[in-house]
């Protein structure tokens, strides 16, 4: 187990390095200029923009910029944003709470819907309930979040006027009122993301349970005269959820990485909206940091998923 972990970590390092090279090159090749708006402003002489570019080292060759970035990153210096001149780590930490709250809640919601629905549907395959659940699951993951997001805004904010569609990170109310406001503004984004995720989880849970429920040990358990509830909960679900657990672990990076589209629609000040605004303003240090952190999270959670899988299912050996 120990050597397995060490080996996996050693493999992760070059892949992260490779990812960073690819990211950096792509960003360097992409057109655009962080000081673009100054180019069309007649009040700002072009020299000012050129001086800024030079000061921030944008005009240096790509490989030089890459090594500068890499050495700084190794020392824990993430650089600073061209747009706000703030350190990138400060920016990311500022955005993290909103993302964790919204995406985390939506994942919990997704599981809370997918587990019971998926299990129940699998225990009664092709029943009316199963058919309905399946239909909704298909609709759910066929509709992109930008569509459902706008639909929700149209229905709940504009027609019914029930919910706000601008997410605010600084609600001034205190006590219960604060919680109420917080929940009210999070309902729509959490629903949009949660239902989308729930739809695909439901399909996974259902097929995982279906796979297990046909196995001999389940028949044995039934033959022993165990109650249906005990059979399903203790024998079927326990085994069926092993692949689901790893699936959830693989989804974890998005909890930190944010949901770009949904965050933009509801103006949630999360990592996703930070990334999109950085991309739009060609703010390379921020794009680099966010995407790189995301890459690290993906690699880490992949590792965790593998380890977790082995731990849950001892038949799988670490090699």
């Amino acid at each position, binding site marked *: 187990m120990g050597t397995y972990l060490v080996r996996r970590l050693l493999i992760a390092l070059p892949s992260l390095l490779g990812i960073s090279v690819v990211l950096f090159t792509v960003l360097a090749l992409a057109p*655009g200029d962080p000081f673009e708006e100054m*180019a069309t402003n*007649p009040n*700002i002489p072009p020299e000012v923009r050129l001086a800024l570019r030079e000061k921030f080292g944008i005009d240096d060759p790509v490989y030089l910029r890459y090594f500068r970035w890499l050495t700084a990153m190794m020392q824990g210096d993430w650089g*600073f944003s*061209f747009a706000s001149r703030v350190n990138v780590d400060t920016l990311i930490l500022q955005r993290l709470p909103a993302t964790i709250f919204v995406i985390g809640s939506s994942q919990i919601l997704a599981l809370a819907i997918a587990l019971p629905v998926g299990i129940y549907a699998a225990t009664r395959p092709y029943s009316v309930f199963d058919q309905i659940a399946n239909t909704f699951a298909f609709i759910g993951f066929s509709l992109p979040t930008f569509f459902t997001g706008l639909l929700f*805004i149209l229905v709940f904010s504009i027609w019914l006027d029930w919910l706000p*569609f*601008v997410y605010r990170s600084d609600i001034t109310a205190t006590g219960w009122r604060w919680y109420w406001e917080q929940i009210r503004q999070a309902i729509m984004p959490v629903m949009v993301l949660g239902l989308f995720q729930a739809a695909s989880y439901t399909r996974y849970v259902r097929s995982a349970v279906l796979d297990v429920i046909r196995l001999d040990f389940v028949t044995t358990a039934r033959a022993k005269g165990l109650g249906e509830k005990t059979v399903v909960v203790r024998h079927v679900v326990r085994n069926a959820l092993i692949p689901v657990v790893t699936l959830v672990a693989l989804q974890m990076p998005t909890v930190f990485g944010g949901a770009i589209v949904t965050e933009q629609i509801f103006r949630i*000040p999360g990592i996703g909206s930070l990334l999109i605004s950085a991309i739009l303003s060609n703010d390379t240090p921020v794009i680099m940091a966010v995407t790189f952190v995301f890459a690290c999270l993906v690699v880490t959670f992949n590792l965790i998923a593998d380890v977790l899988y082995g731990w849950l299912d001892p038949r799988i050996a670490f090699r």
Partner: protein
Amino acid sequence: MNETEIHGMVADVKEGKLSRRGFMQRLAAFGVAAPTAWHILDFHGVAQAQSLTAYKPTKAGGGGPLKILLWQAPTLLNPHFAIGTKDQEGSRVFYEPLAGWDNEGNLVPFLAAEIPSRENGAVSADGLSVTWKLKPNVKWHDGKPFTADDCLFTAAYAADPATAATTIGTYKDIKVEKINDLTIKITFEKPTPFWADAFVGAAGMILPKHVFEPFKGAASRDAPANLKPVGTSAYKFIDFKPGDILRGERNPDYHIANQPHFDTVEVKGGGDAVSAARAVIQTGEFDYAWNMQVEDEILLRMERGGRGKAIPVSSGNIEFIMLNTTDPWTEVDGERSSVKTKHPSLTDPAVRQAINLLIDRESVQKFIYGRGGKATANFVNAPPRYVSPNMKYEFSIDKANKILDDAGWVRGSDGIRAKGGTKLKYVYQTSINAPRQKNQAIVKQAAQRAGIDIELKSVTASVFFSSDVANPDTYSKFYCDIQMYTTTMLQPDPERFMLQLVSWEIANKENKWQGRNISRYSSKEADDAFREAQNSLDPARRTALFIRMNDIFCGENILVPVLARTRMAASSNNLVVQPSGWDLDLWMLNAWFRP
């Protein structure tokens, strides 16, 4: 209306025969209306009328929260680091300049005790200096007094190249002296008719010396106050998250009595223009949103709800088409569109005139931009006194056909006109933006009917407007026959704006395409007019010279203006805002109120 007439009227105002208002109206009647008419009167030593804002509340505070949505969110709060208007707007919530520009192009004092003028002797007769008197008893948000030292420091801070301030252009060539604690004198290197630049408007916000002093020069990025401003304005800083939200509370010690009305102010960022308009006009979640780049049709539909409205504010921005008289398809010394080359067909004035006749401005205005623009034949459209009365526009395919026939451009078997083997085939580029693509299509259709074949090209805005030297698709390289975009005029004086028409600003390889003259056309007469206007202390003469420059470029159909753009904002119906096309949206946030 000529110079003599204007001089005559100024004399009437001086003698009291004509009121200031009468003067403005008289100019307006000639289509040369008021906006910076203060400048004309000011030059002749006629006192300015105090510009009034209908501020109703009788006590400060009590207005509750004010919620503003800037969908392009401020990312920093140091006005001298501002990359775009969004950052200036955010900074303006806390900082103030000596004076700002109102919607008519008048100066309104903030930290100045009075507006300098010839009459009060503050503007020197030789145009070499201006003296500002500062408002006494103004306090920074931390309680320290505001003095001349802060102005001196701000100028030195911005002018230091190591600070990397974006306002360096405004401060690097001026000398600021302290006369006493509440008086400063700005000295210019050469006679400067437009003296109201430093310490005025968006680039003029003054920083507190005691806060920023340790962070001048290379250490500028480390100043905590870049994100936690200490200003003099009506609202004190509470909290700021770059790109997300900005909060302020009422400054109880504000230097204007009974202001501000609101107890707190909140500026939220993110999202897109359409949903911002929706949050203000349709659901009323927010009170104000800026930069409504939304088709007018959608805004009109939202307004039917009755909660909010769109506010068009006229500005100096112009959407225009540019015709290339250099050859974009031949490379000379490593660059295309070089002034050393000649365009095979667009050098023919008849072709350019025909193209001008093929632009259906009325339809573009009516069906695409709505309240967002006004059809025009001029490059300079504001302030009204700089607008040329000589240019006319017309849409006539028949006339265009006739002109081309007369000039010897004959239709070939494919319906495309040609002369001596040169076909009238052009590539017409612009940035990707729905109204622009519609506009392109309208022009293409009309051109087809006149035997001109136009190929449309659209480039992503982030490429088109970038200064990327390696990219051939930027607007400043102009590697095609025709292009269209909007250029902005930010000050009520066209001097900087007119740099786009002078020969020494021609964009080329040598200046890395940073030159302002993108059309690459030049005329000695325009160059001379500009040089004279730069030093001319007589506003009437200056106006005439700028109008002449406009007429040369528009008359030659090098610049083919389409629409004078308006700035659109959205406001809730129960909010009174103070819009200005010559300053920031939030330039007078202190005087906003709910009736």
